[in-house]
């Protein structure tokens, strides 16, 4: 999962011999990411020692699969955070999509593609609505999507009457999404890889991505440099809507039915946590898909390990909070930046 976007670390002397390439590479991995890699290695080692099967291929797949839905949302959360916004409604959006996909599937006489198309269409619509409220209603992104968190949850519940909808595991397509494998890797994980790669390329290789960083870095400057901020913001929220819909479809495929809230509630915090831990500055203009994915992997590996050890959920909460702090403190110590004012 992480290897797709993060080039492996290069041995020291190699890097030193080719300084230009070395620096570029280091900045590609990112000082930020190095400590995440360290933390991930530590987690893998500790649990690997505690349990023989932790490092097995199967368990790695389990971790990856469990992290997929959060991962998808974290990737798009990264984009919107870079852009200077935030989307607290991603979980609710996924819930809407899950319900819509199952209901459209059922009402079209078990047509999986109709179900998915309906979910993505609704996702895009919801995303554009979010963007429009922010851009044209001039509502701060945090508040707008806080409102969305409630409103879209309500929408999902109203559509479904609060019940799980339909049953999709008779359908080959949904079964393939939920349980299939390609080249030994779960289909879900492939989807995450594809989305992450696409977003990574978008952010780093295209002018669109550059402009997204610019908008988040200094919106006045971006506007004066000729970037149509409004267009960008609406598009980014539409992208979130679409990817959240994909997450919702996967939720349906995994659980077998459309779930209005179960399985999607709370995903916003997980996604934001991953993005922030992965190095996104919540003030905008900074962040990478690679860092976010590393953070997703770290949190996933930790949760899996703790569960495998039979640690109860109370200790898991404490451990997760503590790890989050430690990872960031280490990160900050490493970058050694001057401590002025509030840490970003």
């Amino acid at each position, binding site marked *: 999962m992480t290897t797709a976007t993060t080039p492996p670390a290069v041995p020291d002397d190699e890097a030193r011999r080719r300084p230009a390439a070395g*620096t*570029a590479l280091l*900045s590609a991995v990112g000082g930020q990411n190095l400590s995440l890699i360290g933390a991930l290695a530590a987690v893998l080692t500790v649990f690997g020692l505690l349990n023989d099967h932790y490092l097995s291929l199967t368990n790695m797949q389990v971790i990856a699969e469990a992290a997929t839905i959060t991962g998808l949302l974290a990737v798009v959360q990264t984009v919107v955070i870079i852009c200077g916004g935030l989307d607290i409604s991603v979980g609710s959006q996924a819930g809407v999509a899950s319900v819509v996909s199952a209901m459209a599937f059922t009402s079209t006489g078990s047509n999986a593609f109709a179900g998915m198309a309906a979910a993505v269409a609704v996702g895009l619509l919801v995303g554009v609505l979010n963007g429009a409220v922010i851009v044209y209603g001039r509502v701060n992104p945090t508040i707008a999507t806080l409102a969305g968190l409630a409103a879209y949850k309500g929408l999902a519940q109203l559509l479904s009457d609060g019940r799980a909808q339909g049953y999709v595991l008779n359908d080959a397509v949904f079964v393939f999404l939920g349980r299939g494998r390609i080249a030994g890797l779960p289909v879900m994980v492939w989807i995450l890889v594809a989305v992450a790669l696409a977003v990574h390329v978008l952010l780093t*290789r*295209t*002018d*669109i991505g*550059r*402009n997204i*960083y*610019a908008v988040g*870095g*200094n919106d*006045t*400057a*971006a*506007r*004066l*440099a*000729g*970037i*149509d901020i409004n267009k960008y913001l609406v598009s980014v929220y539409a992208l979130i809507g679409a990817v959240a819909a994909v997450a919702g479809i996967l939720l349906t495929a995994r659980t077998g039915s459309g779930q209005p809230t179960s399985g999607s509630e709370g995903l916003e915090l997980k996604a934001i946590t991953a993005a922030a831990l992965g190095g996104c*500055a919540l003030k905008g*203009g*900074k962040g990478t898909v690679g860092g976010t994915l590393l953070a997703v992997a770290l949190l996933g590996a930790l949760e899996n390990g703790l569960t495998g050890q039979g640690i109860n959920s109370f200790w898991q909460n404490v451990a997760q909070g503590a790890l989050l702090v430690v990872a960031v403190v280490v990160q900050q110590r490493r970058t050694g930046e*001057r401590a002025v004012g509030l840490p970003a």
Partner: protein
Amino acid sequence: MSRARRATPHSRPPAGRPDPGAGARVEGLTKRFGAVQALSDVTLDLPGGRVTALMGENGAGKSTLLKILTGDHRPTGGRVLLDGRPVDLRSPADARAAGIRIIPQEPEIVPHVPVAENVYVGSLPRRAGRRLDRAELRRRIVADLDRLGFADVLEPDLLGSQLTAAQRQLVEIMRALTGGSAARVIAFDEPTSSLSEHEVDALFALIGRLREQGVAVVYVSHRMQEIFRLADRIAVLRDGALVGVRDAGTTTEHELVRLMVGRDLSTVFVRRPVVTDRVVLDVRGLTTDRVRGIDLRVHAGEVVGLAGLIGAGRSELALALAGDLPVRSGSVTLDGKPLPSGRPGAVIRAGLGLAPEERKAQALFLHRTVRDNISVAVLERLRRFRFVRRAAERDLAQEYTDRLRVRTPSVEHEVRKLSGGNQQKVVLARWLARRPKVLILDEPTRGIDVGAKAEIYRIVADLAEQGVALLVISSELPELLGLADRIVVLQNGRTTGELSRAEATEEAVLALAMAEDISTSDPGASS
């Protein structure tokens, strides 16, 4: 310390000189930022009752020295002495307590509180129980505005976010000169870069008084005239090292430039007029919230200067032309085609570029690289199927950083790590690289060193020769006089006159800029 006196426009009463050794001294000061050696082994006296000017190219280390002096940066090596005793400056609070104050290069303003609180932030007047003493605050700000001569340009109730660049600068100046314990050392880091003559005069009078009170004044500027008007001694930094201290009375501009740049450099600029009669930018009756009925034509190859005092509306006019401010009435055409309003992107694509005045707030992406900052307005030309051609991008950035001599380890360096002047050059590079038909430069040489200034003038001349229509806003009159084919003067949102190159003198411009009762004499003229 030199005892030689020199003739100055301000006569100095022979005030009682403070004891020798009074004032500050830095010894063996060294500062590294990663691979960048910002200061190396600088030893310099900053005696009380004297104005020590600090000069050097952009990135020479001037701001860094001042920041160490005020506890903002910790030196990698060396120490600071005050009145002969070493002081440990761990934070700006320590430095303030020791009587060291700075007016930083970039004003730091608290946006949502009024001017009064902005000025006394950190030392607000209070009564028992830490209650804020509002009456005293009011009294103090009124008195200080009056005392410092800023009463007519700074309204105490304005919020920080409403201030213009110049007003922000004044707030910073007031911060350093008021409140708390008596100042022993005051450092000015390019305080006049966004001030006009009027405030500059007030400021210099102030500095004169500080000197008489025995304060050690450190003054950083790239403006030769100011240096000679103000300084007693001039210290020159090059590449982080002190290359010489000269007595202001005996040195010459020529010598200073050679010290700074390491070679001879002609700072005299003469421009060859290449004006055509093809109107490129045609503004008729443009009215916004603060400018009214502006008529303006700029021809291909012409450089039009915009002059005026603080708040005259020059920047507002520029932003309105760039599509960033709502236009109430009037029309603007570019090459005969109406210019869209309200959308800077469309304006830029139509061929008009604006390098805005406030680099940090309006132009720079501080956490992005020099390359990104330059290419941001040019990406349309640098992409293939929306993929940025990175080699072409890097070449472009390299070309302009070379031409403007941006002092940076590479184009991949983060812009926030550059010195102020170099950041300004990056902003200019962006718009030069864009090659628009009409280029508006708002205070283009703010904080730029002598050598680079000459380069910028040359680029402006080149652009004019290529048929670009240029509109230059500058508060530095000599610069405008040297550059512009024609000068349009604004006052209080209206044009008060226009001077051809031949007519334009400092006196003539100032007369129009300060012309009284223009607005009161014909009140009904506005829309």
